[in-house]
């Protein structure tokens, strides 16, 4: 326990300085009730896990997305927004729809990565049902294959408005 405290003291803060706040999206797209705090449920709809690695580092100590009010939660019942990665495979289309139904209103969907936006390199593959917007309504898209953590943090800041 003591060594842990020592490690914390010695390491100090590793988070990068906060970049300027991104331009907010149109106000009618973002619900005002969330008030700067957005609980996010991540759904892997068929990703190659590249985006997951980047999301992991976006919520890591260096990029620290939580300081902008975004937080990952364990159930869609606790969530305000879904963070969907990957092209939606046939097996995941129905679970994704059900997850979307399970999120209480108001709710948002963020499509992370090129696959989620337009199926990316998997477009036309036999097991792919379509992009995320073909299955559930998408509010925000984050481009990149995979998107850099900075891009993900920037996207999430648009949601939280901080």
């Amino acid at each position, binding site marked *: 326990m003591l060594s842990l405290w020592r490690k914390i003291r010695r390491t100090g803060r590793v988070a990068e300085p906060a970049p300027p706040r991104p331009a907010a999206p149109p106000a009618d797209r973002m619900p005002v009730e969330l008030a700067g705090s957005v609980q996010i449920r991540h759904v892997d709809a068929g990703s190659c896990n590249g985006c997951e690695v980047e999301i992991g580092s976006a919520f890591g100590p260096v990029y620290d997305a939580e300081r902008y009010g975004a937080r990952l939660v364990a*159930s*869609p*019942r606790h969530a305000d927004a879904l963070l969907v990665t990957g092209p939606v495979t046939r097996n995941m289309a*129905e*679970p*994704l729809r*059900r*997850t979307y*139904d*399970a999120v209480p209103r108001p709710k948002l969907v963020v499509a992370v990565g090129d696959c989620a936006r337009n199926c990316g390199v998997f477009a036309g593959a036999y097991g792919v049902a379509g992009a995320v917007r073909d299955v559930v309504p998408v509010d925000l898209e984050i481009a990149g294959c995979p998107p850099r953590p900075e891009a993900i943090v920037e996207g999430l800041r648009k949601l939280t408005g901080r």
Partner: protein
Amino acid sequence: MNLAAVGLGVAVAVGVLTALAAVVVPAPMRSTVTGAGTALTGAAGVVAGIAAMTGESFTVALPALLPLSGVSMTLDALGGLFVAVTGGVAVAAGIYGISYTRSHGLDARLVQAVFPLFVVAMLLVPAAASVGTFLVCWELMALTSLLLVVAEHRRRPEVASAGRWYAVMTHLGFVTVLVGLLVFVAHAADDSFPALREAGRQLSPGVAGLVFVVTLAGFSSKAGILPLHAWLPRAHPEAPSHVSALMSAAMVNLGVYGMVRVGFDLLGGGARWWWLLVLALGALSAVYGILQAAMSTDLKRLLGQSTTENMGLVLVGVGAAGLFATSGDRVLAGLALAAALLHVIVHAAFKTLLFLAAGSVLHATGTRDLDALGGLRPRMPVTTAAFGLGALAASALPPGTAFVSEWLLLQALIHGLPASGTTGGTAAAIAMPVAVAAVALTAGLAVATFVKAFGVGFLAKPRTAAAENAYESPPSMLAGMGLAGLACVVLAVLPTIVLPGVATAGSVALGAGESAVTGAVTLRLVGVVGSLSPLVLTLALVAALVVAAGAVRVVATRRARRVARRVVRLWDCGAGPLSARMEYTATSFAEPLQRVFDNVVQPETDVDVSHHEESRYLVQAVEYRRRVPDRIERRLYQPVLAAVAAWGRAGRRLATGSVHRYLGYGFYTVCGLLILLAVTR
């Protein structure tokens, strides 16, 4: 006219007549006649017992009835309490048995005739007033219960094994009681209890201690106390359910009766170490019994192990009472004994209810395995309510029945701490805190155990087709459960109506004194600080529940008016529908406890993972098996059994089958005896 004498006489007469009728009456009517007759026997017993508890004791001597020793009966308040409890259980079990025996193919003449005789034997044991009568009734009780335990031995082979265990252990217990009482009688004028009482005062401490310890072994084996409990979790589940109720709620009590009668009444209190021994055995049994029950997945076995626990708690009370009495503290001794005797009554009520409800489940589903049950609530609403009430009664939580007696017990133990300035002694200083801790741990584990039994067994979805097709039991079984449930509720909210009788019964053991607890609605402890009002507590809890539920409902309807509600499916991780396989099982519920008590219970777990043929990385099936063996049984019984077997094999060499040899043995034995007599005379 003495009501106690008339009641007991009527009980015996009706019981014997019912047994005769069961032999004569044709099969379709037999179970009705037996059930009604047994219930009447029990009712007469209740009347006799209550009359005796209110002070109408009687004595009757029938010297011609039994050769050599004769029969002599005395029903005093202490015996009356046990007679009343036995009678009450018999009423519920008798009514319940009408349909239960019919639907379980138990309407054979022998089983039906023995059932009322078992009740009569149990009613007579506490009324016996001489060693001869006591032992005859005790043996009659053991034999009739044995016949009832093995009633289903043709259908299930495990019944025969349970019957063997029970037969051997109950008779070893009988032999120890016999030896102990005979040693006692050898120092008295004759074998009547008054003569023994007289002799008990002048007995040397060594002989008195020997008598007490030897009889304690016998009585504690009947009460299912460690380490002589091995028969109980075997025999109680395998007996037909109404017999289980009688055995577990009435018969085990008589072990406690024997201890109190011999220890307090006949031997007159004795030394401090006797009661420390009783206290230690009780505390150990309570914790170990409930721990085994918490691990158990067999509904009736769980209840049997819980009997060991409750008898342990009773023994804690009895031991504490003895300890206080030897220290000269009459007030606390009276309180502890009252707690113990009240727990006997309370345990009888809820254990009857639980065993009858378990029998109803067995009747509807054909299984006692909790992991195969579930989802019984919509299918058997009355049984579920009955078991729920019993489970609440068995957990020492405020509206429950066992709460009052365990509260009294804890009060006695806490006030017995030398720090509070009542009793001295290093032994008490060590024993009391440990006993308090044991009782508290037992209470906590009991809650976990009964939450498991009720939640896994009755709620959620059915796990098997048997549970899916369950149906409610016939009216007579429901009536039996209803009676036991009513007793539970009355004892929970108004324990004060039985407490005067309990106090009178206790005064037989401890000598006349003030009642330890007074009050009509509120229990007030006499001599020490403490009061409790179960009725007000229950009403307050119910009111709080109603208010909370009402408030939630009001808030919910208000919100519903403001925010549009929508119906969504239950969250099941997005995958297929929820199935019974995803439910908590009894095994998984007990798993955290099993981890905590890993060193104590030492469970054996096996995990077999079978892989797919094509790839080691794909798992085809995972099989998990857990067994919780009884450690005491393994350490204590197996070496003894092995030694007996080895001795038997060695003895076989002496018995070769040659008649000449056997005649030779006889001849040399007689010669040896004659020489011995010639030398010693």
